[in-house]
């Protein structure tokens, strides 16, 4: 119920961080880091998404329920990805 008004300065800071991260992720992609490339790209994407969710979408100041919905949706996406890949990654362990 409490209506938290985030100061505009916070928005500008977050915006700066997001643009910086975009620059970084593009730059990193041009270095050969092996599997780290993918991890870095996804890590930065997760970080950016978290910033947007927490500040632009006000979840940092939101109710516990909002947190629950956000984490729940991520968890369910995780279930879908993890259990599906659980099949694909173990198929070669043992020929059927």
């Amino acid at each position, binding site marked *: 119920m409490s209506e938290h008004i985030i100061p505009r300065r916070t928005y500008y800071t977050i915006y700066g961080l997001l*643009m910086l991260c975009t620059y970084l992720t593009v730059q990193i992609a041009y*270095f050969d880091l092996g599997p780290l490339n993918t991890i870095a*790209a*996804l890590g930065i*994407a997760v970080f950016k998404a978290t910033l947007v969710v927490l500040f*632009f*979408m006000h979840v940092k100041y939101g109710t516990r329920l909002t947190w629950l919905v956000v984490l729940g949706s991520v968890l369910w996406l995780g279930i879908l990805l993890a259990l599906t890949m659980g099949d694909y990654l173990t198929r070669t362990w043992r020929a059927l």
Partner: protein
Amino acid sequence: MSPDAAAGTVPHPTHLAHQFDDAGQQREAASLGMWVFLATEVLFFGGLFTTYLVYRNWYPAAFAAGSHELLIWAGTTNTAVLITSSLTMALAVHAAQTGNRRLLLLFLLVTMALGLVFLGIKGFEYHTEYVEHHVPGAGFQFDPANAQHAQLFFSLYFLMTGLHALHMIVGLGIMSTMFWISWRGVITSEYYNPIEVGGLYWHFVDIVWIFLFPLLYLIARHAH
């Protein structure tokens, strides 16, 4: 039952739908409703992300080759455009909260304009890919070593960005409605649910792109 059952209604303030007791309840219901809808959207795109993950894991070389054919400048610019539009959307909500109608209208307009720029650039990219025969189907042409599976990459590319673009178009529709009701002065610092809830949707579409960008455009760029 009391005989005056039908007559016992308390006069409702404007904007308060009959089923709610007070504005706070309505506000929280609207916001929760949008969040639950966004959870649905996460899983909707989730099906595509799963497909992507399976095939990228199977055909890394073809996915890298496909990724190299995308216009990285366009993808990067579009990322910046969308992030900026997210900022202006957040500022629009701020303007609504503080009751600044002129700023609210301005930021909504800028947000919509940036959304259009995004779609314009995306359209240009689609055109380029069409010209280069990267649209899956009979006309698809690619370096024969990777042709079979690069087509899978491009199918996913078009489906994922296409669905994202569709969400952008819906978002533009929502923004136009927001603009219209703000123009009419419906939005005040007391009642700004629609702006806030519409904003959540817009930010979500931004987040989807934040993931699509590295997954589609940034695979093993160093190889070229």
